[in-house]
């Protein structure tokens, strides 16, 4: 099927759609060639700021979708493929670089600060919010598996919750954790996480081992 040309309308439609991250990634991957060709023609005199805006939004969206599909290394590689001049001068792409640094260094507090505090273009807001939610869920699972006991303030920092309220042992903050099955000990002032198990997307075959043995048996014969 022929790909419609990369335009602001097309991009906006994709970014604001509620498509699963993998589908978004697939769709934007197909547009990278067009973006690449637009940027190659960017040196000629007949291209203007319209192209820069389009390219900036395309690369920023593509970057966020990389993070949304948990491809941090590949997101870093993408920043090396973005035209240098655009990367250096575009505020939205500079935000992406700051975000990448925070994610790369697992500075959780910094990640939330970048996502919430820096000015992102309106068109990117849905993706930014989706990534914030994704990052929060991912961190919650990781914290639940990594800590046997955790201070409320530490947990709040990891999940981007208000640290001051956490220090005051705010009931709402505590309930954020207890509703996940964690227990709160008021005496020790510690949370005891319950490890969250994520079931795989595909249904597991119950006779997998038998099949493997059959294959081995065939070859052994």
């Amino acid at each position: 099927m022929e790909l419609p040309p990369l335009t602001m309308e097309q991009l906006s439609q994709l970014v604001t759609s509620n498509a699963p991250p993998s589908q978004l990634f697939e769709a934007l991957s197909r547009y990278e060639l067009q973006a690449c060709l637009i940027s190659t023609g960017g040196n000629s005199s007949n291209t203007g700021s319209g192209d820069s805006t389009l390219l900036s939004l395309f690369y920023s969206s593509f970057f966020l979708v990389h993070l949304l599909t948990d491809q941090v290394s590949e997101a870093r590689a993408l920043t090396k493929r973005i035209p240098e001049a655009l990367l250096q001068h575009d505020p939205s792409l500079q935000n992406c670089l700051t975000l990448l640094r925070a994610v790369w260094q697992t500075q959780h507090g910094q990640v939330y600060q970048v996502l919430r505090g820096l000015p992102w273009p309106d068109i990117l807001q849905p993706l930014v919010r989706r990534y914030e939610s994704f990052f929060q869920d991912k961190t919650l699972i990781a914290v639940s598996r990594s800590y046997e006991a955790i201070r409320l303030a530490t947990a709040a920092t990891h999940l981007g919750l208000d640290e001051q309220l956490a220090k005051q042992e705010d009931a709402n903050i505590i309930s954020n954790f207890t509703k996940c099955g964690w227990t709160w000990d008021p005496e020790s002032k510690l949370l005891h996480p319950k490890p969250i198990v994520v079931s795989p997307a595909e249904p597991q075959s119950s006779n997998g081992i038998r099949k493997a043995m059959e294959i081995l048996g065939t070859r052994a014969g």
Partner: protein
Amino acid sequence: MTLLSDIISASANLHSNHLPSDEYDRRIRDLVEYFRRLQTTKALDSFANDESCLNPLLGATLVKGAMLRLDPSCAVFTSSHLLLVRLCLQAKAYSCALPVLNKQICHFPISQGRPSSDPSVLCADHSSGVSFMTEASGVSAKLSYRDYLQYFLYGGMVYMALKEWRNALHFLGIVISTPGASSVSLIMVEAYKKWVLVGLLENGRLCPPPSITTPHVVKVYQSLARPYIILAHAFERGDLKRLNAEVDAAKGVWCADNNLGLVSQVVGAFFSQTVIKLGKTFAALTMADLSKQVFPSPVCAEVTGSAVSSLIMSSALNATLVETKDHAEASMLRFSSIHSLPQLSRELDLQSQLKQEMKLMGTLVINLGETNNNLGLSDEYVDSVHKGQVWSGSSEVNPIVGGEAGLEMDEDLMGDMS
């Protein structure tokens, strides 16, 4: 001219009188499929001849699409494999190479002079790429030993860029253990240098080359990659000061070999590998004790705690943290814990691994069958079977000759009687 003759030979199949409509449809479909394959083959040929005309990203995307369309299993090694990986490295589009790199290569294009190597059968319904991706088909340029080594070295570099160290080690292992007719090639030495660094990043130690590597080749590697071996020893001893000193001393070597990035990652991995090693000695440590064990100069326990927390959360370290009410120093790192991961989660991981291994085995079994079949049809095998028959024929003839001799004797006997 070649394209024209290909089209004529393919369309000739259609000109049979009184074909039933479904048979005609099938042939039309075959012809269309043939043209798709032909187009892909010619396009790959053009790319291979003139890489310079391509934007690397555009080239990588097109070559990947063409390869997967021509043979979705990508099991036959062609010059396009090398072209794709090189373009992906140039374009820094590493994951673009993965659909091909993650597939198992099981065959080389089969040689000429075989019935299946006739290009006119490209339109046939092929069960696998081996039957039509022959030397004569033009799908691949002539391959050399160097192409094979380069593909696996570049493939390893793609995995390194994506920090898939285990896969990178596998690819580099293929390069360094490749048997050579004469001496060790420069590509193999380069791969060995990377092998040492990737081994430190993945396993925290100097990994011995694969067991099939001949001892004299290992000695050559060790003498040519001396600074890397010294660096690995410093890393293994857990001596951060010495490690930094070795890194500074051989900075020129790392730069000349384009391995500076990997070396800096090795220094970065020192902390995580040291903590993992401590887990083999201790069951649990406080943050204050851990800081003393790992860092030569005093470091704030909160910094250590944050670094350890990142390690555990990224699954690089199988342990858990137990925080206390007030002091970061008193927080405990527990290496062996029943809490760390529920049994169900481990079993799901194991099941998923088994599933992957089973898929891989299935592919290998299919390709082994094909290899067996190809070997059975090869000229060498037919010659050896023929020789074997002659030999076994001659050994079995002896009794017959013996029988004939016996008959002769009988005749003689009869003669005597007469």
